[in-house]
């Protein structure tokens, strides 16, 4: 493993320079395992939180590390969700292989659309990601015979996990299943981020022209991370299908792309752990606040976004970082 020197200009490197696991990196897993025992009545929500964490994590790879500002990440989430759902409706009820199929489909879509998206930049890039998602949603809406259209895809039956664990009514299996998959995805994401490939992505984000000049194949690397991220998002979508046994048209919506972006930003972008903070905070706050008053909810989210951009770039983890360095570490 290549070890890079720490940055010198007094700014803490956002990533640990070495690949050693720090103890604090295990906190999310301890919390997630603890939540399983502490809040047995909230496991259904917990499972969805884990899925959104995975989705936000996949977005962090393209947005935070490769610096690709996309408004259409729901395209991959939705593709994964629909692939898993359609397979299950047609008798492919084994969950793990369906998860792989969903990942492959979303990854393939990532390669195809990435080849288009990554040739553009700025507003055009934003528009292309947006339009691809709209196109898919419109397609899913109109292909009612396959996708259930606006009514959603119903009649999904999922076989017991590994042939032994049924998906129960309380969401226990769903929670642990999502947790296990999220853990595997985190291991993969962490390996990628700390690999030379991951480091070169940061270089591309900071200065693509210079990376090109020193011989880094910029387009290929961006395409590769785009496809990997798409596959992870597809897995998240498939997990949602399998654990809720329903697919709504909203999995391909602009709103979902926006929501996951907001979650990631609130947590902190480009830090691998922003997803683990932003998604649970957003989902729990939404569960508690939006139930009473969904109108105010969006207002506060909007205000929070404006404030984060104006005063706290880097999100919650950024604030924590600044407090940490401010207290003389």
């Amino acid at each position: 493993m290549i070890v890079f020197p720490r940055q010198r200009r007094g700014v803490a490197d956002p990533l640990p320079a070495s690949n050693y696991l720090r103890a604090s990196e295990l906190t999310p897993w301890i919390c997630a395992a603890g939540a399983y025992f502490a809040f047995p009545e909230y496991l259904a929500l917990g499972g969805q939180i884990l899925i959104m964490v995975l989705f936000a994590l996949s977005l962090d790879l393209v947005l935070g590390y490769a610096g690709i500002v996309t408004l259409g990440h729901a395209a991959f989430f939705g593709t994964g969700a629909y692939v898993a759902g359609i397979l299950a409706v047609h008798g492919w009820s084994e969950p793990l292989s369906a998860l792989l199929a969903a990942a492959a489909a979303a990854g393939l879509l990532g390669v195809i659309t990435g080849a288009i998206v990554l040739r553009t930049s700025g507003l055009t890039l934003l528009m292309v990601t947006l339009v691809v998602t709209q196109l898919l949603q419109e397609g899913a809406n109109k292909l009612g015979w396959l996708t259930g259209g606006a009514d959603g895809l119903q009649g999904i039956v999922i076989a017991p996990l590994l042939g032994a664990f049924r998906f129960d009514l309380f969401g226990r299996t769903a929670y642990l299943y999502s947790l296990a998959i999220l853990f595997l995805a985190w291991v993969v994401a962490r390996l990628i981020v700390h690999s030379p490939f991951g480091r070169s992505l940061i270089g591309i984000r900071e200065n693509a022209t210079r990376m090109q000049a020193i011989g880094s194949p910029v387009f290929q690397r961006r395409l590769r991370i785009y496809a990997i991220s798409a596959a992870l998002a597809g897995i998240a979508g498939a997990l949602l299908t399998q654990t809720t046994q329903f697919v709504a048209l909203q999995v391909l919506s602009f709103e979902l792309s926006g929501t996951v972006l907001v979650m990631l930003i609130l947590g902190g972008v480009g830090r691998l752990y922003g997803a683990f903070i932003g998604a649970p905070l957003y989902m729990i706050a939404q569960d508690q606040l939006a139930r009473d008053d969904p109108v105010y909810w969006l207002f506060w989210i909007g205000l929070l976004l404006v404030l984060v951009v104006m005063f706290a770039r880097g999100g919650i983890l950024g604030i924590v970082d600044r407090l940490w360095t401010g207290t003389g570490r």
Partner: protein
Amino acid sequence: MLWLRLSRPMDAALSALVSIAFHGLAYAMVLYLISVGLSVTMGLMGFINLAHGVFAMAGGYVAVSLMNRAGVPLVAALAIACAVVAAASMVLERALYARLYGAAELDQVLFTIGLVFMAGAAAKFIWGPLPLPVRLPDYLRGQIEIAGRLFPTYRSVLIVSGAAIVTTLWLAIERTRFGAQIRATVDNRRMAQSLGINTALLFTCAFAVGSGLAALGGALGADILAIDPTYAQEHLVFFLIIVSVGGLGSIRGPFVAALVIGIADTACKYLIPEFGAFFIYAATLAILLWRPQGLFGRTA
């Protein structure tokens, strides 16, 4: 006259064509009025503004409430809505937008999405979740006869007044000093600055004019694009499509794009409703792949 003697099926087809062209044109006018300001401000400042629809929504709300509740006549309501929104947008630009010129794309995207959320929630709080019904004055209801065919009066007026506004705008951009300064700044901001053009002031003015036009578009088009709290979010994609297909910073590009999209969308909904907006998105994708800078955008 020839068209009177056409056979029935042909006349029906002609009717459909005329109808599509008419409603498409009305739709295109609204889309253009709303989007042109977005094109200019994005071209001038390179600012990715996803919240432009908010100004159109605000214009619609203000004008329709003035008409429905206070009984203000249509033209006065339009003028007030335009002025109020332009003034408010100036404050917003000075207080918030100006801080983010030159900031990272992501920050601009997030900031403007935040504004969209807040505006939607505020609109829902003040006016409720349902679309605002438009009560037109009597002289604009009903239909008028043009060349032997009947057309809805209001939409005919909409097309004519839209065309008048567009012509004024083009003349203003081409013939006035302010217009020349805008063109110069879009072309080369640094050069314009060194020639003594106060670009910060120009940005604010252009922003206000663009927002005022959007308010006008939102208010005039309230019976085509219904005014409800999700307005800014729901129609955002279409406004962005028009700007990016037309070309950033261009005045005429968005007009062509609005015409193409307005008429094509109307035709698709009329002729092949089972596909919905599918073809619009596919066409946008194709155009952006062919010319990433838009039809009338300059190559970077």
